[in-house]
Each structure stands twice: as C-alpha cells, then as structure tokens.
C-alpha cells in the first residue's frame, strides 16, 4: 500500500541514519524522499510503500524513536474522502492552480518539486473527485499524527 509519512526530527545525522535504517528493517520501500533541514530541526517527507497491515506499526515505531518530534501519516485514498493531495512536478503551475481553485487549501509541505496540499472543506464533492482524478496528483487521507509540543505523548487520530 502506498502511504505518505511526514516527520520532524532533531537535525542530527544519527537520527536520520536511524530513521532510514528503520525504513529498511521494517521493509518500507521508499518511492520518493525529501529532506529539509533548518538549524535545529529536519523535516522528512517520504512517499513509501509497505504491506497495509504493517503501516500502523511503522507509524508507531517512528513516533517513539529518540530524536523524532512529530510524525504524521497519510494513506492513499482514491475515494472522495481524501483531503490532501501530493504532487511531484517540475513546475509550479499545478500547485498554483489548486491553491487558486480551492481558496481554503493550505500548502503543508513544499520542497524539491514535491508538494503536499490540504484541500480543506469542500461542499462540492464532485469538484474534489475531479481534482483527485487529475493526472500527477495523488490523493491522501490523514490517518494519524503526533503533537510537536509534547514529544510523542499526545497522539491524535485524525
């Protein structure tokens, strides 16, 4: 199953090494991975694949790793319930178009040609469906996240 994991962690190569090792050990296939760093923090956005029954386990495994501050995971969702889209593109125009067409949408992540956009409230499910069927867009539903204010302790199922 394809899923998307976004996490914030301490900016430390040991933490990053351990994360990638965790992906390897848990049999998570990385399709795309984007890494961003700030002074004390790094962000990782990875489009990955793993057996459906192991996704929840991997999420919990990641969120309890030392140095990981926040983890959110999104499941590929082809129905109209998906409220996020992932775009990999060489130009900004599809992103600009979505943000213009859906005024309540928010850009969650943008780096190296990869974007995650929250579409927001839409009364018109047909419009959302049409959006999801556009080529190059991968629709996702957010399944679980942790709070970044209290380490891994506050888990919210979304």
């Amino acid at each position, binding site marked *: 199953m394809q899923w998307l994991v976004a996490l914030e962690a*301490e900016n430390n190569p*040991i933490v990053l*090494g*351990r994360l990638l*090792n965790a992906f390897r*050990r848990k049999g998570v296939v990385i399709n795309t991975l984007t890494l961003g760093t700030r002074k004390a923090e790094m962000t990782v956005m990875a489009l990955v694949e793993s057996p459906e029954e192991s996704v*929840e*386990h991997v999420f*919990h*495994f990641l*969120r*309890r*790793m*030392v*140095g990981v*501050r926040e983890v959110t995971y999104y499941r590929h969702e082809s129905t109209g319930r998906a409220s996020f889209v992932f775009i990999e593109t060489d130009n900004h125009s599809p992103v600009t178009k979505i943000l213009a067409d859906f005024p309540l949408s928010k850009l969650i992540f943008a780096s190296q040609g990869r974007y995650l956009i929250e579409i927001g409230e839409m009364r018109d499910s047909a419009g959302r469906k049409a959006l999801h069927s556009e080529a190059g867009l991968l629709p996702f539903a957010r399944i679980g996240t942790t709070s970044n204010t209290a*380490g*891994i*302790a506050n*888990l919210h199922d979304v």
Partner: protein
Amino acid sequence: MDLSNGSEILIESLLQQNVKVLFGVPGGVLLSFYDALYKGKLPHLLVRHEQAAAFAADGYARVTGQPGVCVGTSGPGATNLITGLASAFMDSIPVVAITGQVSADMIGKDAFQEGDTIGISMPATKYSFVVRSAAEIPIVIRQAFHIAVSGRPGPVLVDLPKSVLVERAQTDFSFDPPSDLPERRGEWLDADIECAAEMIVKSRRAVFYVGGGVIASEAAKELRELAELTEIPVTTTLMGLGAFPSRHSLSLGMLGMHGSYATNQSICHADLLVAIGARFDDRVTGRVRDFASRAKKIQIDVDPSEVNKNVRVDVPLVGDAREILSALIEETRAQARREKGISVAKRQEWLRQIETWRLEYPLTYDREAECVKPQYLVEAISEQADEDAIVSVDVGQHQMWTAQFYRFSQPRTWLSSSGLGSMGYGFPAAMGAQVAFPDRQVIAIVGDGGFQMTLPDLATVSENGIPVKIVVVNNRSLGMVRQWQHMFFENHYCDVNLGRVPDFKKLAEAYGIRGAKVECRADLKEALIDFLGDREPQLLDVSVDPYENVFPIVPPGASLAEMLTGPLVVEEK
C-alpha cells in the same frame, strides 16, 4: 580556573548517575580515561573480552533495575560489545556503553583501530551519541542514562573521541533535564480501563500472559493482586519468569514453544487473553493466526509500536504496566462490587479444566534413570538454592529445562538472553549480577557449548573472588541444534558433536577455582550441597544424558495446539 579533562568529567558524570561499577577492557584511545580511573573514584572490573563486559552490564541491570555500564576501546573493543548490546536491545535492558574513538580530526581517515561505532551500533541500540567536546559530556551522559531507563528501557552507546577525553574544559552539572527526551506517558483513557475491567469481570476462561515488561516496570505486586482478585491464572514468557511466583496456585509456568501442555491448552481455549508487557513473539505464538484465536485480547505495553504488531488486539492500553494494573485493580474492584462479586464458581470451572490438562500431560521426565537427567539437575538446584538466588543461563536445551523446572519466587532473579538468544551470555551475566549483589547466591547454569565461548572470564571471577557458581550441563554437544536435526532434519547430525570437550574441573582449577565433576545421579545432591555451601567461585561439571530432548515442543510453523508432548509422557499416559 581549575579545568578538568574529558576523562575526569566523564567519571564525574557517571558518578552523578549513581554508577557503582564499570565492566570493561582498556585500550589505546581510552588511556586517559583509565588514567582518570586510576585515581580510584569509580570501580572497574577488568573482564577478558568486551562481549563479557556487555553481558555483565546486562546482568547487573537485570538484577538491579539500574543501567549497567560497559566500556570498550575504539574499533574491535566497540565491535566486541555489539552482541551484548543487541541482546540487551531485544530484551529491553538498560545498558550504557562507553566507547573510545580515535581523535576527532582522525575520524573518517581509517586511522588505527578506527571503527564506525555509531553506524555499527545503530540497529543494536535504543540510541547512540557522539560527544564533540568535553564540556558536553555531562549533558550527554545525563541524556544517555535517561533514555536507557525511560519508557521501554534499552541500551544506549556513547562514543567519545580521544581528543574529547583529553580536552580540558570547565563543566557545569547544574543543568535542567532536557525536555525533548522520549518520555512515555500513558495514552490510555479511563474508558479503556473500564472496558478492559468489564471484559475481565465477565470472562470465564481468562489468562494473564505476562512478559518482561512487568519486571521492567516493577509491577509484580500489582500483577499478583489482580490475579488473586480475579482468580485468573498467569502464564509467563521466558522474559517474564519471576514476575509471578512459580509455586502459586494460579501459576501456569511458561507458554509457547516449550511451554507445558496445560498452559498452551489454556491459551487455545481462553475467552480472554490479557497480555502485559509481552510482545507476542514467534516462540510464544507458534502459528500466529491460530494463537488464542477464541480469545478477546487486551494488550498492556509501554511501547505503542508493539500494539497490533504481531497479533491484533481488541483493547490496547499503552503506558506503564504498574500504573495500568493499579487502575485495573481499582476498576475491577468497583465493577465487581456493582456485579455483587466476581463469580468464583465460573472461574473454578476453568481452573479445574486447566488442572485436568496438567494431570493429563504433566511436565515430566524419566525420574528413575540412573544417569543424570538434566531436568533432575535443575530441580535439584532449585531445591538447594537460596530463595532469592539469582539464576543465569546460556541459550539452548539447558535454558529451556531451567525455565521449565526451576521454581522462581521473585522478579529480577532470572537472567537469560531471551530475544537474541546469544550463547555465551550466562556466565558473564552472572558475574555482573554477583558484582551487584556480592552476598547473594548467583548460579550460572550453562551448556558446555555456550560456556566454551566465555572461558577466559574464569580468570576474572578467580582474580576478583566473585563467588559465582557455575553449573555446566554437559551433554558434549550443541544440544538444541542436535534436537532439531534429530526431529526435523532426519537425524542429519552436522557439526553438533563437540568432540573433545575439555575437562572443565581441571580447567577451573587451572584458573584457581574449585571444580568438581558429577557423572551419576546418586552423587548429585551431595555434590550440590558442597558446591552451594560456600561463598567462593566454583564450577560443577555435570554429565547429563546426551540424548535427552526438550519436551513439549511446538514444531516450527505449527500452532500451540499441535505441540508434541514427547515420547516419554505419551508412554506414561
């Protein structure tokens, strides 16, 4: 200004964490550290191989609940620690490993005795640190110890370049604990506790399935209280031995691959399974889809990633086992009051059924044999040993016989490399336990195969007068491998016969330790009385039946219901 060097700061930092002893071997990059140790503020036990240092630290941690600390130099010193750290990681044991590293400016240049310790240790530790300056040593050590014991405990490695150990710096120990450490807090809600308590109260055929998490969270008292309150029987994993008294009427002993018939049957027929600090590993579950398939399941674990990992559960309770058990006791009492008591009658029916299974296929062996049956040896040790004796084992048949036949009465008295299953663990782990409790009886029950991996440390116990009692269960082979080749590989015995096994008595004597040998059953009890009767290190080499196998056994890939109870038991029946 009076500045200390990194090595002195390291020792001060370890003392601040209440470290009482280090287990290690010195080496080139650690010379300044050992020079600081020379001043005598922190005892250090010189072992003969770094793997023994890691296992000794593990043994120390298991019996005290405090992190054990091991030390190795850069390169081979650090790599030799890895097996011990991997074992501690699998069993969630708090160990802190201090490793030397080449000077910071030499890292990455393939210097003499340089090894990528961090890279190598990543999958074998809960976390690992590289220290970049002497000034940061106190905070890193503080973090390392905190991580080792917090939430699900585990080993942490701190790699210190030589340049950091000699650097002079001013230090400040008055820091606040860092806020971003992975403290686990309970993620359970009162409603979850109510739901779990209701399931417990309403169940008719419940079983508590208890792992090492109960020992790690010091929850044995609460477990016993809840078991007695509800009259629910308790089975333990290999890691959970000691969490519940073996002689208690509600004790089912160990479950799984070498669990008793009654215990595994109770799992197969249970309507409720309450897993407490246990991770549903393959040696417990057998064929996983058939494991406790009739039971609703509650899982209590501090690690959220253990929930639903191998077996789906109905009610997960993520948090500290002791806190959750306390809440469950309170809620179960309240619900029982409302229900006008827990129906003892329905529980008695279940307990009677288990007793029937126990009588049908008891854990037994040929009690009339003239040779020493290994199970008889373990029973005899169990009878002779002190009530609070600590027992450490290697890995293999003797480990399973000890788990089946030794009677444990309290937690933190059983040392076993359970998850990694590392031979060569038993003797050094016993050394670590004995250093923690010099006045208690510590017995290493080891096989002749595993013990031969650790022989050099006979010098360590001899020189330091560490009164470990070593029982060699000598069947002159790698018995468990032989058993599997016999049972599942058509008697294709390949490299399991150990051939010229040394004369362990003479070997012990060569190291300055008293040794004795037993070859027939009639001599055993007297030899054990002598063996356990003093406070000196001793070795007892016991020749046991080399053809004895461990039964019952759940064949690989089979379910618990398909266990083989063994030829002897079937004949008796």
